[in-house]
């Protein structure tokens, strides 16, 4: 690869065509497409590294705010461990509340990151290049936060190791029939896989950072970059591993949210017991996940001034992707709803009656956030490329999808087979604190992370730009410059 890059040479050295019209076209293309608007690698490096050191007062204020919320989360959690789950609003029938909804939600927002990176990589979509790492990072931290929730949720956290398959003298194993066990396995696998996937792609950039930094950062990066030197063999292995992981991680990704949904749909519980839940949850997760990636892109671009890397084309592409997911999600939601409605089973109807009855405000807010707004706006390219608009839409989808999870988890549980035991659920302060605190924790982790690693995969961008004038035919790499012109 390195060789091919060398033989073809950077096309940005080429002068603009003489024809004025053509020159304008090329210029416009460069403006719009990052891959066409190449800069020297050194400049890319500097641009990325400079932002990592950038910590203004606003950064610290945000950090303090998120830190305070995170602290509140851990204190609330500690109080909950000491006094028992009694301080939450859970009750005899609604035994799963926002903690499980949070688990689903956080896995959801973590879902799209690796998907965007891996699937788009396999499909050779170049627009993924500058945003891949930002997306993968949200997977990593989203999953990490999600993995906290089963721990927060259980009654006896100090016995949680019973869920691990540890060989023991008592012949006691976890129950391999339990969806919960497999859910835990899937999350763990996905977390490990995603971490590896991100880390592998991170190595060249860490090596780059190592080469440009001094002091403790240099020590840190030289340790983390595992002695990367950039030999051809290393690049080759990197590509092999990346492609391999891309293939492997996608089924795992599907398994994670299917596993989560099966926790619900395998239960005898009206509102849960639905065959569509597997794909429905995967789509829902992608939906909220892509929206989350867009949000992160906007924030990263704005706060770290990465206007060069994240351009209209990226927001446009992500907006289209989001629109497709909106439609898919609506399809699944409609399919689930109409099956239940037409089936006319009393208890399923009771669940629906609750959604349009006491929970109507939440339900309609959810429909507004998840259907009306994205469907009504994302058709327009102007909206898709407008950062404020996308920010609002992204946040609304987060709200909508969160409500959807809470309605499915706690809402359904409040209507069960024996009407004598129906009960409504209202969250108490621990759930609220923990939920907000975890969001803050996610933000905090992300924020700190952006100051430690290059959040733009410089080598990928560089590679993309370098490869822009070439294409692969069999094993050979050929120039396609004529096609561009």
């Amino acid at each position, binding site marked *: 690869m390195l060789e091919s890059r060398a033989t073809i040479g950077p096309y940005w050295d080429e002068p603009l065509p003489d024809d004025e019209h053509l020159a304008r076209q090329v210029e416009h293309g460069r403006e719009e497409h990052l891959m066409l608007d190449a800069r020297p690698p050194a400049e890319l490096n500097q641009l990325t590294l400079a932002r990592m050191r950038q910590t203004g007062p606003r950064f610290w204020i945000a950090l303090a705010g998120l830190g305070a919320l995170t602290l509140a989360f851990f204190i609330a959690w500690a109080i909950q*461990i000491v006094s028992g789950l009694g301080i939450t609003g859970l009750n005899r029938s609604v035994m799963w509340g926002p903690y499980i909804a949070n688990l689903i939600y956080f896995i959801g927002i973590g879902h799209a990151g690796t998907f965007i990176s891996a699937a788009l990589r396999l499909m050779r979509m170049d627009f993924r290049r500058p945003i891949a790492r930002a997306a993968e990072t949200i997977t990593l931290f989203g999953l990490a936060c999600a993995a906290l929730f089963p721990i927060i949720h259980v009654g006896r956290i100090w016995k949680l190791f019973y869920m691990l398959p540890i060989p023991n003298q008592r012949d006691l194993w976890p129950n391999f029939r339990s969806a919960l066990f497999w859910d835990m396995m899937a999350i763990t696998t996905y977390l490990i896989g995603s971490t590896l996937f991100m880390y592998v792609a991170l190595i060249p950039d860490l090596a780059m950072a190592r080469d440009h930094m001094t002091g403790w950062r240099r020590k840190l990066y030289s340790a983390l970059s595992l002695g990367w030197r950039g030999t051809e063999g290393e690049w080759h292995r990197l590509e092999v591993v990346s492609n391999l992981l891309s293939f492997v991680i996608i089924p795992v990704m599907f398994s994670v949210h299917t596993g989560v949904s099966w926790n619900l749909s395998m239960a005898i519980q009206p509102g849960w017991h639905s065959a569509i839940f597997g794909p429905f949850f995967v789509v829902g997760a992608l939906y909220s996940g892509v929206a989350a990636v867009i949000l992160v892109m906007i924030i990263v671009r704005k706060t770290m001034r990465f206007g060069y890397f994240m351009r209209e084309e990226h927001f446009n592409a992500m907006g289209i992707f989001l629109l497709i997911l909106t439609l898919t999600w609506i399809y699944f939601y409609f399919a689930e709803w109409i099956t239940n409605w037409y089936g006319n089973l009393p208890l399923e109807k009771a669940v629906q009656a609750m959604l349009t009855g006491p929970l109507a405000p939440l339900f309609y807010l959810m429909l507004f956030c998840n259907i009306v707004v994205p469907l009504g706006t994302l058709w327009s390219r102007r909206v898709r490329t407008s950062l404020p608009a996308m920010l609002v839409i992204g946040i609304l989808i987060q709200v909508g999808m969160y409500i959807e999870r809470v309605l499915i988890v706690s809402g359904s549980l409040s209507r069960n087979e024996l009407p*004598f035991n129906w009960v*409504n659920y209202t969250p108490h302060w621990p759930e609220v604190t923990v939920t907000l605190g975890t969001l803050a924790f996610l933000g905090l982790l992300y924020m700190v992370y952006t100051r430690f690693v290059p959040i733009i995969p410089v080598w990928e961008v560089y590679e993309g730009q370098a490869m822009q004038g070439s294409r692969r035919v069999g094993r050979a790499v050929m120039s396609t410059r004529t096609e561009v012109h």
Partner: protein
Amino acid sequence: MTHLTRRDFLKVSAAGTATAILAGCAQETERWVALEPYVRAPEEQLAGIPNWYASTCRMCPAGCGIIVRVMNGRAVKIEGNPEHPVNRGKLCARGQSGLQLLYNPDRVTGAVRQGERGSRKFEPLAWNEAINTLYEKLDAADQAVAIWTGSATSGHLCDLFARYAGAVGAPAPLRYDLTSALNSVGALAAANNALFGQATLPGYTLAQADVIFSFGADFLGAWLSATGFGVEFGQFRSQRFGKRGLLVQFEPKMSITGAKADRWVPVQPGAEALVAGALLRIIADEGFGGAERAGLAAALAGEVDLDAAAAACDVPLADLVALARAFAEAERPVAIPGGALAGASNGVAAVTAVQALNALAGSSGLGFTPALPTALAAPGWSSYAEVQALVERMSAGQVRLLLVHGANPVYDLPPGSGIADALAQVETIISFNPLVDETSALADYILPDRTYLEGWGYEVVQPAFRGLPVVSSQQPVVGPFHDVRPTGDVLLTAARGIPAAAAALPWTDEVAFIREQITALPKGASGGDDDEVRWARFQQHGGWWPEAAPESAAPELAAQGTLDVAGAAFDGEAAQYPYYLHLFPSVLLGDGRGASLPWLQGAPDPLTTVSWQTWVEINPTTAQALGVDHGDVVRVESPHGAVEVPVYVFPGIRPDTVAIPLGQGHSDLGRYARERGSHALHLVGAALDDVGANLAWSSARVRVTKLDKKQALARLESTIDPGEDIHVPF
């Protein structure tokens, strides 16, 4: 969390993962109750192996036999005594909860003196001093002593008190409390006397009955002997050849008996006599059940307005006719009067009218407790007129010493009785109750008796079942838990100094007295030829009863002439106070004694599933008219007082009636009872009924005003309306 244990500490630090895992390593070895070695081991005790001791339940006056499971010196479970003729191995919720009386955290742990009445500041008193005080006060009071006993007073103690009072020439001890009022034992006895010449409580055999007409008697809930009737009802429902009997319940508010009835007839409060009279009239007019029965009915029934009777029942006249026919043509019909109808101003007339129905079939299901072969007898209940007389004597300062045992007059009587003022005029009040109740709070001394699980006693059971006279035994199943002394011993010791009493009470202690009474009985079902064995068997088997019921003829109708079917009078103008007030004892709390026991407080009321609270039951139509829903607080006001209670919209109640359970609203009685709910007896006046002997506690009209307040009802049931699609799962 009262104390920080090591485990709690570990949990505090468990927020860190390392600590969390560590906490898991720590074994949860903490035991709530540890095994402790003995100094001297009782012969029959082995650690880890339970012992059972037979005794008698004293949570209500029914006298059920219990066996108590004792492990390592602790009473851990109360169960029904399978041999006992009353409850036959079964036990109600209140009986189960007796353990919480024994181990109640608010028990008075020793003799105490109260400096200022009502201050609730108690100084401990050595028992020597306490007994000496009792002696001095008894000595000083001489004949001006009054003794007030109640349901929780053991039979032997009633006898001892009676002997004492007789010896010193004081008036006989009073035996009256809210239980006796709610059971309307006075009205029942008066009516039985008038009809059959038997001034005792009626017993009913339901097991073979084919039709039961129950007028207001919640015999499965909280009336007379609920467990005994429960056993009978179980047999009534599974008779031979699949026969399950017909139960018709006439009452203004559905009780659990009403819920189990095949037909629930919402009769207007006070109109029960009219309905019973109408049934007789119909039987007579239509000639149902053959000439003999119709003739008997004709002799008893006067002129009755049948349409008015049907209207009072909210049923068409044809239904009433069908019911009359069903009753008259049944082989073994039984009619049971009780509950609120006996507390109406026409209570005795109403009970008489209903009891008269039994006479149609030769009173086949009715029976009266046979007398015992010795002089031992169940102590009689006092009438409210006697209570009034005592209150007057106290107010006039004629009572210098009041002894209260097993009753709680301040709570048990309506405020209009003037009991609080009367007590203030008594020089010395000594209470023997185990908890500081409302009366003990006004006492000068509390010399707590042992609870029934720690003390000796016997109980002559009334009403008896299957015609068996029963003396139920009571023995300590555990050692005394606190430094408390049996009142019998305290009384016998103190009486030794009073010459007149010493002669009448020669026994060294109460056990000697009980033993003498019991060994005088002939050989019973448990056998035993000599006194020693009989005494041992008495305790071992839980009492004395003969092997077979003594031959007794069905009660003969003694009364002649037609029945009085006049309606009841109510306090308050109908225009001003539009609703009848229906008071009923809670199935769980009984007359209020249960309020100090968390199990009973925490168990849901059967029909409303509400626990820990007082509520007012209102018909949905009425609730709509008043604009109230579940949990809206309303003010229920009668001419005598007012209470503020949350609403329970109750489908099984007449629209012109509101119902409030009794049992809550204590100002004392320990942490679980105090300041909880309201005491609806405050709505009742202190008027007497038609015979001038009983309290007309069910004779108030009320008005209901919605207040701008809400109180969430502690309901076990769902608070969500399931809608029409969801059906009852069976």
